[in-house]
């Protein structure tokens, strides 16, 4: 058995270091000395590089370092994965583009055509991370006025139609949200594989939808016992509904040659976060159940980085250092590998990893951590001590 490891393409700029909060890669920071993509040329003017040029570097690094592909997240102030993926399609060879998107935003027949076209552009390297929860005021920003549970119903119907027009000719469907008569993709498009589907969403409505259509159930990292229970529940519940579910974890790593070096970077990063920003945390209102579970870990009270160590090599303050989930793995290469091995033993079938900066860390994690997996990393650890 092998495990698929994805990396992440940061779609909101990238920090040059986990120690500092500045997005100095991309144009989310002002154009100035030390910024890249765009940066300044020798005359002090925009050098003409765009953020996609940096994303191409990260995708190629991940591809070269052994990752099967990368998650491309989507939020109101990010670049869009449906544009990034085809832009990079012909620059990469094996890198799979995991497109995060909310199905309600596209007509499912049009989405099927776009997807089959992207499969043809990439040689079958499209993967979907279907997002349905999200919500709160952000949904209306996107132009979506459906309620949380209705959105899951819509996601299910979307995927019914998406797969239906792809797999069948003369496909008809009468749903609450979508109706199609006599539809179907042309033979040129229909012979492509339907992209693998990754689901996120912790609510009951989400699991019901996942059991029908998802290949992978994706969770942020949670404390290991909690995550083990969650995966067991997902697998059991979807099996009862007639589905089969693999489980995947999305987690950031700070992997260094020694544990001391890893924690030093965390300490410096933590100290660079102002008190006020620490109290505010990041992220806004949402009706996502997953986000609420993570917020329970929110480190607004912490005064020392050590306050946020929730278990060996598990630190709950990542959301202070960059947008996204709170909990991540910190340690030596061997320790990081041991934690990932433990997650595999507890039912994790695939991973989306990330580290800051995304470019350099793709090589580091791919070269230093991934090769240690499954090689009884615990024994390596003992030997190292």
């Amino acid at each position, binding site marked *: 058995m092998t495990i698929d490891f994805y990396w992440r393409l940061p779609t909101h700029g990238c920090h040059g270091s986990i120690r500092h909060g500045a997005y100095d890669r991309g*144009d*989310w920071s002002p154009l100035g000395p030390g910024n890249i993509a765009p940066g300044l040329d020798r005359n002090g003017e925009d050098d003409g590089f*765009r*953020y*996609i040029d940096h994303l191409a570097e990260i995708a190629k690094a991940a591809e070269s370092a052994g990752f099967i592909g990368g998650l491309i997240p989507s939020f*109101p*102030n990010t*670049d*869009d994965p*449906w*544009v*990034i*993926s*085809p*832009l990079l*399609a*012909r*620059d990469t060879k094996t890198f799979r583009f995991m497109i995060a998107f909310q199905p*309600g*935003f*596209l*007509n*499912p*027949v*049009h*989405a099927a*055509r*776009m997807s089959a*076209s*992207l499969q*043809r*552009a990439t*040689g079958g390297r499209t993967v979907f991370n279907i997002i349905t929860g999200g919500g709160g*005021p952000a949904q*209306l*920003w*996107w*132009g*979506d*006025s459906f309620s949380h549970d209705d959105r899951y119903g819509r996601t299910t119907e979307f995927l019914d*139609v998406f797969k239906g*027009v792809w797999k069948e000719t003369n496909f008809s*469907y009468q749903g609450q949200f*979508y*109706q*199609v*008569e*006599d*539809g*179907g993709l*042309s033979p*040129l*498009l229909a*012979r492509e594989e339907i992209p693998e589907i990754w689901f996120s969403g912790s609510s009951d409505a989400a699991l019901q939808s996942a059991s029908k259509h998802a290949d992978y159930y994706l969770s942020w990292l949670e404390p290991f016992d909690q995550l083990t229970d969650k995966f067991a529940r997902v697998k059991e519940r979807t099996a009862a509904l007639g589905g089969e579910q693999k489980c995947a974890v999305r987690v950031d790593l700070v992997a260094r040659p020694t544990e001391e070096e890893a924690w030093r970077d965390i300490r410096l990063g933590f100290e660079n976060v102002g008190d006020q920003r620490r109290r505010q945390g990041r992220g806004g209102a949402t009706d996502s159940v997953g986000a609420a579970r993570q917020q329970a870990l929110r480190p607004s009270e912490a005064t020392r980085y050590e306050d946020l160590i929730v278990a060996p090599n598990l630190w709950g303050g990542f959301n202070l250092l960059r947008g996204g989930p709170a909990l991540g793995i910190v340690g030596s290469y061997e320790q990081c590998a041991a934690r990932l091995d433990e997650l595999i033993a507890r039912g994790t079938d695939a991973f989306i990893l990330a580290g800051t900066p995304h470019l350099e860390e793709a090589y580091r994690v791919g070269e230093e951590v991934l090769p240690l997996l499954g090689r009884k990393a615990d024994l390596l650890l003992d030997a190292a001590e």
Partner: protein
Amino acid sequence: MTIQTYWQIDVAAEPARSEISARGTAHGLFRDVRTSALNRYDYYAQIAQAAAQTAFDGVFLPHRRQSDDAAIVAAAIAREVPRIDLIAEFPASAGSAVYAAKQAVSFQRLARERLGWSIAPPLSAEERVRDGDRVADEDLIARTEEFLTVARGVHGEHPFSHAGRFFEVRGGGFEAPLNRVPFPRIFLQGESEEALALSARSADVHLFAAQSFVSLRSQIEALDALALREGRTVDFGLAQPVLAREDGDEACRDAARAAIGEFALVGDYDDVAARLAELARLGIRYFVLSAPSSLEEAYAVGQHILPRVRVLSEQLRAAA
């Protein structure tokens, strides 16, 4: 007035070219080492490169339901042709206007502000239900108009709110750095009165179908009057098939073989260039030129016709 010349990449034309899996088993004597890794995307990129090398200003990708999505193709070839415009056509039924605007903004940011949008002419009612589109015939124009209003709204204003018949947004609009790029130029089509009226209200460019000089002139006058009433300026474009050869007889022979349409411009290089210059004089500013064989004809037109047209329009400008 500078004219813009775009070359059409028809994703559904010449379906067997570069599409190895469409050719069936080869029984030839030659050793065929091509694999299915080679497909039309290689050809699309090659046509775009041909258009760029022969000094077209851009490529125009019509929406074709049976083939690759034009927006995906435009993005897939964008980094190989870093300077020319990329006009991608899609139907207004594609989905959320906000999401379409978001994708356009990313495209503009990442591919250097070269995107144009062409909204595909409405499909028949039968085709629409096949495509999961429930909007009735009489609402199509209104939907396209609202789609563009909302897409432009979230692009241009923050916060933008809208509660319409087809789209609802609250507190929408982009923040920095997403709000720094221009909205794509909008191309609309159609010869009906309603289509012209919609263009008068919403298009940047109205793309006329190839037709007789006389009827084109009356369409242009009609649209001009409508736009004037709206207090807007709409540029005129023309989707024009061409077939040009070194001598006119060859051109006629090849046009007959290719069964090229009634209103195609067929002739020797000087003839075709002169006809295009006449159309420019009539007010056409955007030419979407096309021919049955995209790659070879891009060279024929780009190398031989466009330089002549540029000289003619230079003379025209000097005379004016």
